[in-house]
């Protein structure tokens, strides 16, 4: 399965200035949470899914596979919200006795769970729109534009680079361990994992020192100054985005005030 990072790098929307993509996908999360309406959630879910697949060029099968990832949490989480326990079975629509009490679902519980489930799916699709279309480096730049402190952005982008560096090393170590039977059995697995983690730690300390020296050679003095590639970024029509957001907002208000559902 391709990583989200690779999807973002290949996205047809990657050249769109990141601010616009955030402006497009983030407000609907807030609206979906606030409106708390199944039809509105479905609207957002559909809109974002279509944008990811049709505009972003992600294969529907890939998108669906990614949607299944949070499904585990979604199922357990919503089921936990729906199911209740009570001494009085009459409060439940469906129930079964369990020990001295009854376990079952109430009408409000089911409604709450259904709202929750769709709301979460809608929000996740918005998050996916950003993740599928926007490389992390671009996000770093837009954080600067809204006044996030430079140190935080520097740290974020360094962590981004180092995550892949360490992933590479961790998987090399794990492969070498597997080839010497490192994961045959629980005791061996513990031993292998512990040595993997400690070696990775030592490696990362050493690598950070090497990087420091290499950066010093290029004049590092404590501030990481870099220049972003000159923006060949496409600027989509701000009015278009505003129109979509406004329309969504109207539907959200209508849904919230009970015109739908």
């Amino acid at each position, binding site marked *: 399965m391709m990583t989200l990072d690779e999807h973002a790098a290949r996205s047809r929307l990657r050249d769109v200035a990141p601010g616009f993509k955030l402006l497009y996908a983030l407000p609907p999360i807030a609206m979906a949470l606030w409106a708390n309406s199944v039809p509105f959630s479905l609207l957002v879910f559909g809109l974002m899914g279509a944008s990811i697949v049709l505009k972003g060029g992600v294969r529907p099968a890939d998108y669906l596979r990614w949607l299944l990832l949070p499904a585990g949490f979604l199922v357990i989480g919503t089921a936990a919200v729906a199911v209740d326990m009570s001494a009085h079975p009459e409060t439940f629509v469906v129930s079964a006795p369990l020990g001295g009490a009854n376990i079952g679902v109430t009408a409000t519980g089911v409604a709450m769970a259904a709202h929750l489930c769709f709301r979460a799916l809608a929000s996740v699709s918005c998050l996916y729109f950003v993740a599928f279309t926007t490389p992390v480096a671009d996000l770093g730049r837009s954080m600067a534009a809204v006044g996030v402190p430079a140190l935080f952005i520097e740290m974020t982008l360094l962590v981004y680079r180092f995550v892949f560096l360490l992933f590479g090393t961790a998987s090399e170590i794990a*492969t*070498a*361990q597997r*080839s010497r039977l490192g994961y*045959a059995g629980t005791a061996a697995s513990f*031993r292998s994992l512990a040595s993997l983690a400690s070696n990775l730690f030592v490696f990362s300390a050493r690598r950070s020192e090497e990087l420091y020296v290499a950066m010093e050679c290029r004049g590092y003095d404590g501030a990481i100054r870099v220049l972003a590639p000159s923006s060949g970024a496409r600027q989509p029509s701000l009015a278009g985005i505003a129109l979509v957001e406004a329309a969504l907002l109207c539907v959200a208000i209508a849904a919230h005030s009970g015109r739908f559902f």
Partner: protein
Amino acid sequence: MASPDILRTEALRCVWPDGTVALDGVDLSIRAGEVTALLGGNGAGKSSLLLSFNGILKPRSGRVLFGEEPLDYSAKGLKALRQKVGIVFQNPDAQLFASSVYEDISFGLCNLGLPEPETRRRIDAAMELVGVAELARKPVHPLSFGQKKRVALAGVLAMEPSVLLLDEPTAGLDPQGADGIMRFIRELQRSSGMTVVVATHDIEMVPLFCDRACVMDRGQVLFEGEVTSMFEHRDLLRQAGLRLPRIAHLLEILSTKDGFDLPGTAMTISGARKILKLMKEEQEINGK
């Protein structure tokens, strides 16, 4: 004498998780008791092939056979396989993970669950063999690069595999170090009859230390056969991002461009000496 095949692939196709095709229909036989060179440029698929011999990389289609049996990818099957097929990776830093040399060499043996006396005997034997016995109690990370490579090798040899896979064993070593490790491997193969597969792009050492060669490019096998016959396919070598050994290149130019009448070709210094001496003798006879 044709040795039986100990490892074989049939239409092997492997794909990395990100979708890159690592191996694209590889049919290859590794003969028992010989040293086989896997040659190719960066990204040709050499390392992937080694990983699939060890059962780490699973085929998308096609299969790998050890002896006459297709690989068994169950936990038990892999355990049995990896005991017999050992792999030494290119980067020793990624495969030495214990805090001391001795402990690291013991890693694979402990996972085999051997009794302690046997484990200790094998560790000592392996350390003796590769010449790191005096480092036993040292921590791993301050060792030199060459020492680390030897310790990594000992960790695999201690498991007494019948097939040894080596990924770029000479990378990062200076000429004497590289020569030393290849001589050691050749010696090991001669004395213990071990089967060795060496993935490398160091073409110079192939005629010196290998019996057979397989040239790879972009996940495919371009050539498989005796080392001596490989160099008749110089176009394939170039296609794979390689070149002739310098001696072979010199002799080639001498005979094709400079009008030397060479009675054969050679890839090594000793081979070239023979040919040039022959040429000289012929000239002297003709001259007289």
